[in-house]
């Protein structure tokens, strides 16, 4: 167990370090010059431009030697300071991101957890009968194979445009100011539903199939046969199979996080939902390296935390990890 966590921490540590370094490289690596991008649209005459350029360079601290910039980056990072957004100048990056985080949590957590839960239940159920398996399994496959944004587009087109049931842009109506009333909450949920649905459906399909396959393997496992030989009822066998099939699914969840984040990004783009993914895209389109850095960092941290949570859950449900027999190759 100690070994298990020791190794996990090592990996997370390394990952974080590398990620941050790569992150720091972004503005230095990418083409274009953030400052001239800021100034490019402002109609200045020659000397004015030059003066402003120098000024901004100081503001962004790009006039220091590289190694110092790197150290400063770590320094300010530990103080939770990610610099100033160029595209949302002069807003601090952290503030911009914090404004987006709740929307992500609101969109991602329910869709991930619910799709995982429902998918597993459903997959286990589908594995039970051949008929269900043959009819519903393909649907699952089609769902996982659907590109997030396309499902988003479809839902937006059908429910937003053709049927006009749901709004397809923003987090709440333009005609409202946030306040606590059922009207507003309903409005928020209406805006939230389609993006949630597209994330949920794609995930759901994947988990259902994963679980279905897992269960089938487990039902063929030796311990299942032994139970049969001892005349144990199907219910017990299924119970064991499900419990054991959940474990790989849990690992799967950890592995999927990256993909899901990507999915969330494009989904937010389709529905212009003001989460980090959407922010990241605008940052990229506007060459706002500092904001890109911030978003990237947040995503990494989020995923690391999620992974860690899953590791803990794993230790709780799987004795083998506790025995430290599996290390991390679970």
């Amino acid at each position: 167990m100690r070994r298990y966590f020791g190794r996990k921490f090592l990996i997370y540590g390394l990952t974080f370090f590398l990620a941050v370094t790569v992150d720091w490289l972004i503005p230095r690596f990418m083409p274009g010059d953030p400052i001239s991008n800021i100034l490019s649209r402002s109609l200045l005459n020659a000397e004015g431009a030059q003066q402003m350029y120098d000024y901004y360079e100081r503001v962004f601290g790009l006039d220091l030697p590289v190694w110092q910039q790197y150290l400063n980056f770590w320094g300010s990072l530990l103080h939770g300071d990610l610099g100033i957004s160029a595209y949302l100048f002069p807003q601090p990056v952290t503030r911009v991101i914090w404004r987006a985080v709740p929307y992500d949590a609101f969109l991602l957590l329910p869709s991930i957890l619910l799709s995982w839960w429902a998918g597993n239940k459903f997959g286990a159920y589908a594995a039970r009968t051949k008929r269900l398996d043959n009819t519903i399994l393909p649907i699952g496959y089609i769902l996982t194979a659907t590109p997030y944004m396309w499902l988003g587009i479809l839902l937006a087109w059908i429910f937003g445009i053709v049927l006009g049931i749901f709004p397809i842009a923003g987090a709440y109506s333009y005609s409202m100011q946030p306040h606590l009333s059922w009207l507003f909450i309903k409005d928020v949920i209406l805006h939230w539903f389609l993006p949630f649905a597209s994330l949920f459906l794609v995930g759901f399909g994947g988990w259902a199939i994963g679980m279905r396959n897992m269960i089938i393997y487990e039902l063929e496992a030796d311990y299942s046969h032994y139970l049969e030989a001892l005349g144990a009822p199907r219910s017990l066998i299924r119970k064991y199979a499900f419990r054991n099939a959940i474990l790989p699914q849990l690992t799967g969840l950890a592995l999927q996080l990256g993909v899901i984040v990507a999915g969330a990004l494009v989904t937010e783009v389709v529905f212009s939902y003001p989460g980090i993914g959407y922010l990241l895209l605008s940052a990229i389109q506007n060459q706002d390296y500092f904001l890109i850095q911030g978003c990237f960092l947040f995503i990494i941290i989020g995923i690391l935390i999620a992974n860690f949570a899953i590791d803990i859950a794993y230790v709780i449900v799987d004795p083998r990890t506790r025995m430290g027999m599996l290390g991390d190759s679970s």
Partner: protein
Amino acid sequence: MSLSVQNLTVVYQTLHGDVRALEKASFSLKDGEIMGLAGESGCGKTTLGNSLILLAPPMRFVDGRVLLDNEELPIWDTDRMDPFRFKKISVIPQYAMNAMNPTRKIGQMTREILQARKIDPGHMMTEIKRRLDLVELPHKVLDMYPIELSGGMKQRMVMVLSTLLNPSLLIADEITSALDVSTQKAVAEMLVEFRRREFVKSMIVITHDMSILYQIADSIMIMYAGQLAEKASTEVIIHDPRHPYTKLLISSLPKVGVKVAEKRLTGIPGTPPMLLDPPIGCRFRDRCPVAFDKCTEVPPFIEVSEGHYVACWKES
């Protein structure tokens, strides 16, 4: 008569048709008899073992009757078999190493199985503990996960578990093959001990390992290509086999007590026939040194002397 099997025929369903894995097997076990069941791999001995307790697809029951303590076993109907399993007939499977749910504490799993069989685990506990002592397992294994046990310990745990309800027939399938020699010996002796204490009435011990049988079996039954070849007391099989196949088998063995493992019978030219469409008559015919035209008919499995059955025209 603890067990009597008559004309038991079981096939494996494959897409190319039925593989006749067990052909008209008829034999019986006396109360308290430990019968060894030997033969090359793929000769159908495991099929026989399984068909007695868990006849599941791709196996298919074709014909025959099985009486256990003069009661018919509905082996063709897995649901109706359930009441007998564990209570009347039980098994120590080939895969005993992985037989236990890896994510359940052993004690908990035991309890759940017992409850599932409508037995109050409560007053089984003392008995379980007694038997753990017997197989030299500490009581705390009940609070352990299978992964924490060594191969031998798991093996013994499964033995205790399978025999917990004192079945009158126990099928032990290759229980020793995965163990090192010393543990093998111990496990084998425990089987005898179990019978002595009447945890089980009689046993069928399926194995490649003649030496084990030599130690513990009262009688040995030899199978070839899905057919019974010969059954007799251990002494007789070892020293005075009658069936040509048995003879070759025994003679091909090095000194008794040495492990033969899965070594193909190099002594005998040819290989066992494909059982998809087995040759008519005696299936050993093609390889048999003494085969003659009569062998195109299936030889009956007849008692040539007290408790000694042989399926060979030469002998009848």
